[in-house]
């Protein structure tokens, strides 16, 4: 039962002082089957005048606050302690063939699981892209969906290169496909576009990876910032998370913060300022193994 201590710091620096700031942040890790958030603390400087919490439409924790002290620098420190276990994967052969998932999902939607439907259509950051559909069409549609997920990941590993310089937050999907380069967010969006083109419910997941891997294992890509991966809904099984950047199913080291249709649904920090001119944003993430407070040491 690994327990992780996470420190996520976001700093805004303004050219000229800002008079006030309104912020909405999604930084508290989710509570779900394979993980529970044991502690969470938001440390904000300058101090906010109000801080309230809501759960958003996708069940993520949303904190909303305002800062009314004039400031040129503004910092949000999020500290969490999370207990995360290795999610159980179904046997690939027990998952339905990809070609059947769309019809099975239709049935699930009709029998009350209507929320699945939002993950099967284009969303703001993941428009319909023909080239993504072509990519998906090349794979064997008779394969079990779990096998298919791995094959699509391997195709990404072969054809796409991780390159933080190639894209930014606003690079459209079609451009990522043309460049064949990008970062975790791009790969997650692209993977989702491929899955949705076949009618699969596919979600975007934001979260963290362990900064230093256990001895003998390679360090993951995306470990010093926020990471992103995807989740595919398999009829009869449920959501299964896959990391297209590292070409693996999400494991005990993948700590889930928020889920949504795409990045726009889970953006960790969103802010509006009164004054302040141009600003720069910097962030740092550290994820370390911690003692489980529930099991006293010695």
């Amino acid at each position, binding site marked *: 039962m690994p327990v992780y201590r996470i420190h996520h710091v976001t700093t805004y620096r303004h050219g000229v002082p800002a008079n006030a700031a309104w912020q909405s942040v999604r930084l508290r890790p989710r509570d779900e089957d394979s993980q529970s958030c044991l502690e969470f603390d938001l440390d904000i400087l300058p101090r906010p005048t109000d801080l309230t919490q809501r759960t958003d439409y996708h069940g993520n924790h949303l904190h909303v606050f305002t800062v009314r002290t004039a400031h040129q620098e503004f910092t949000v420190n999020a500290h969490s302690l999370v207990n995360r276990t290795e999610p159980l994967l179904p046997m690939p052969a027990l998952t339905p063939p990809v070609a059947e998932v769309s019809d099975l999902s239709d049935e699930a*939607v009709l029998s009350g699981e209507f929320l699945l439907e939002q993950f099967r259509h284009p969303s703001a950051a993941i428009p319909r892209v023909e080239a993504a559909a072509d990519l998906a069409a090349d794979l064997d549609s008779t394969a079990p969906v779990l096998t298919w997920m791995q094959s699509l990941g391997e195709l990404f590993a072969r054809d796409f290169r991780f390159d933080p310089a190639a894209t930014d937050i606003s690079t459209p999907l079609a451009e990522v496909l043309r460049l064949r380069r990008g970062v975790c967010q791009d790969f997650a969006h692209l993977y989702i576009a491929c899955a949705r083109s076949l009618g699969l419910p596919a979600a975007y997941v934001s979260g963290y990876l362990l900064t230093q891997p256990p001895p003998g294992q390679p360090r993951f890509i995306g470990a010093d910032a926020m990471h992103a991966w995807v989740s595919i809904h398999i009829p009869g099984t449920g959501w299964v998370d896959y990391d297209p950047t590292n070409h693996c199913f999400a494991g005990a080291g993948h700590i889930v913060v928020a889920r949504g249709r795409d990045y726009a649904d889970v953006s960790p920090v969103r802010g509006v300022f009164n004054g302040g001119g141009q600003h720069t944003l910097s962030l740092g993430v550290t994820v370390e193994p911690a003692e489980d407070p529930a099991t006293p040491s010695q």
Partner: protein
Amino acid sequence: MTPPAAPFTSSLFKGYASLAGRYDEALAPNGSVRPAWQAFARSLGADPLATLRTASESARRAIVEQDVSLNIYTGENSDATAWPLDVVPLLLGSDDWNTLSTGLRQRAGVFNTLLQDLYGPQKLLRQGLLPAALGMANPHFLRACSGLGKSRQPFVHTYAADVARSPDGRWWILQDRLESPSGLGYALQNRIIVRQVLPNAFKHAPVSRLYRFFSDFRVSLDRLQSRTESPRIVLLSPGPANESYYEHVYLARHLGCPLVEGGDLSTRDGRVFLRTVGGLREVSVIVRRLDSEFCDPLELDEHSLLGVPGLVHAAQSGRVAIANQMGGRAVESTALLSFLPSLCRQIAGEDLLIPSAATWWGGQRAARDYILANLHGLVIKPTYAGPAAPATRYGALLDAKERAALAAEISANPSAYCGQERVLLGTTPAWDPASSTLRPMPFVTRIYLSWHDGEYHAMPGGLSRFNTSGEDAIVSLQSGSVSKDTWVLSPEQSDEPPVMEAATIHTNEQRHGAATPSRLADNLFWLGRYLERTGQLTRLLAKLDPLLRDEIAVLDPAVLNDTISFLLSLQDSPAATGGTLDQKADYARRIACNLGHPGSIATNLNRLARILEASKLRLPPDAWRLARELRAASKITLNPIAIQAHLAHLDGVTAEVMVHDTGWRFLELGRRIERATHTLQLMRALLDRPAASPGPTEFRLQTCLHLADSLFTYRASFNGTFHPASVMSWMLAESENPRGLRYQVERITEHLATLPDELAPRSVEALSTTVFRLLSSVRLADMDTLASTPEQAIELWNDQLALLSDVSNQLAHIYFAHTDGETVA
């Protein structure tokens, strides 16, 4: 048995014939004129067409005079056009009205429940009564607003529907409006104009009055927020660039509530506040005319510059009521219409009373096949409207190739398309200015309902529109349609008092000066400054020619040279070097007309026009007309005389017609600060000279007084002798000269004393100190010393100019530029 009445004839319907296959409002199928139209024709007198011609002309004049306008989007250069109105009303009998109002009440209730569920428990989605994709893949379903449907308040405060008559005489709904139904203000404005220009017809017809609907509308807004004892209502508009801005101004006036933009509001602790010159005042009800998506850059469209950060959160906390609540567009999807009958049965427990045009949604397999097989007979519409949505197309109007392309387009992404039965719109008589006769025009009417006392009430009237080309296709005011008043004829209602013409409801709270929105105070302050600045500049320009022609110009050309340089420096232009006086004057005139030059008179007039537009709501209607004439006068050529006349008139209106409230004080402060600045700049420009040189010539002194509009008053007070000390005294130190410096500074002191100081007591104190220093320096200056030591005079004037600029900056800092750190009043 009574003998059959003689068949009705009237020259009104000469040559009028109904269109094949369509229902006509005036003519029955057998060609006879329907009774309501017979009565209407009779009420127009012996020559009804002449009456209508006169009425049309009067209406056009009234629209121009009242500056009723509609901003048509033409990309960057959007420009307001006069409101298109046909004076011939649509006549609706009480049977038709009962059918419509009953059916629409049912529909408003169904949509309200639908939205409360969609933004609440989502039972209808869970039960499959609303197809999952229409909620879950709907770009207009705003997830951030999820939960807002749980409020006890109605989600839909105002509902509107576009209705049309089908060939068999039944009514059909073409479109439902839930997001933020527009046009209510235009409907009211149409009524007021048509009643004015067709007084006799209006008097004789039993026309249902609108006043009750509007007074209920106001009361229901008050009651939307139960937590606050005296609710503060504001109308949130996207601003002057919006197509319906005129209507926003009109409605805000009518409702007696401030017209605000996103920047006027601020949120904290889940509450919404209006930034006023007296601090933050809590807002309890927002009449929303800003599209939901743009309402909150924090939780909705992050690129919106029009919204209020934190508004969604405030709505979620229940401390502010929004009419209509954000997110209504989600159920405006065309596709929804095919599910409405079953939803209505589920929600209301009864059948839908008025049908929508039959609709098939491509997201369902059978419906998609039907659409593809029947393209020729259907109207193909996008499932979700929006800038990226495919265009609406009439299958019947496409050739085989185009139809095949459309079929391929639909097959590729069927759920993005709907097929709708083409309804052949009924026609109603409309005035045709070209032939001066009536012509049958296919029309659509928008009917409004609002929530009051637990149920929806329809406004007995509406906004009818027809397309000037006589075609059915898209009857939108953006694409060249003409509007009509709509008369609901119901015998029992005709004796009620007339509609309110202007805002009559003012709470004490709103009258209280401190509640003046900061941005409005800012605009009024700059309005005062620009009125004065453009006035000074144009007067100066107009005086140039007579001065050049004066024979003294030949004797003392340096004075004119300095005058021209002064005019140039006021326009931020360096002095002209070389050339004759005439050439220099020409140069100054060219600069004045140059819109590309940032300080030119033309540019200043442009800014004035923009500020007038932004402060419209607080100016008397006279000022709107003047603003329009001023705009026209400065567009063609810079005619200083015409512009002066308009500016003088505006001065008069702002001084004598405007309420002398806090907003007006800011306007006056702007005017006085500008005039004081101008006086000092003029003195500095004309009376600066080397210390050793002889004193100014008499011509120079006269010119100085003349340019300051003080020559006449000076002569009267000083018996026509020109001494430098007495001229300076008259221009600077005498309280009696209304153009002089002292007069301005005294007025500034008086106005400042009336402004609220609870907002930032220390800054207000600092401001008073600055003004006191200015007043003392004006009072204590010794004119004989100034006249004999020019360098001392220049130093003093520079100091005074700096103090004036301080006053202006401190005012802006205290009252206009809120830091959001201030306390809640």
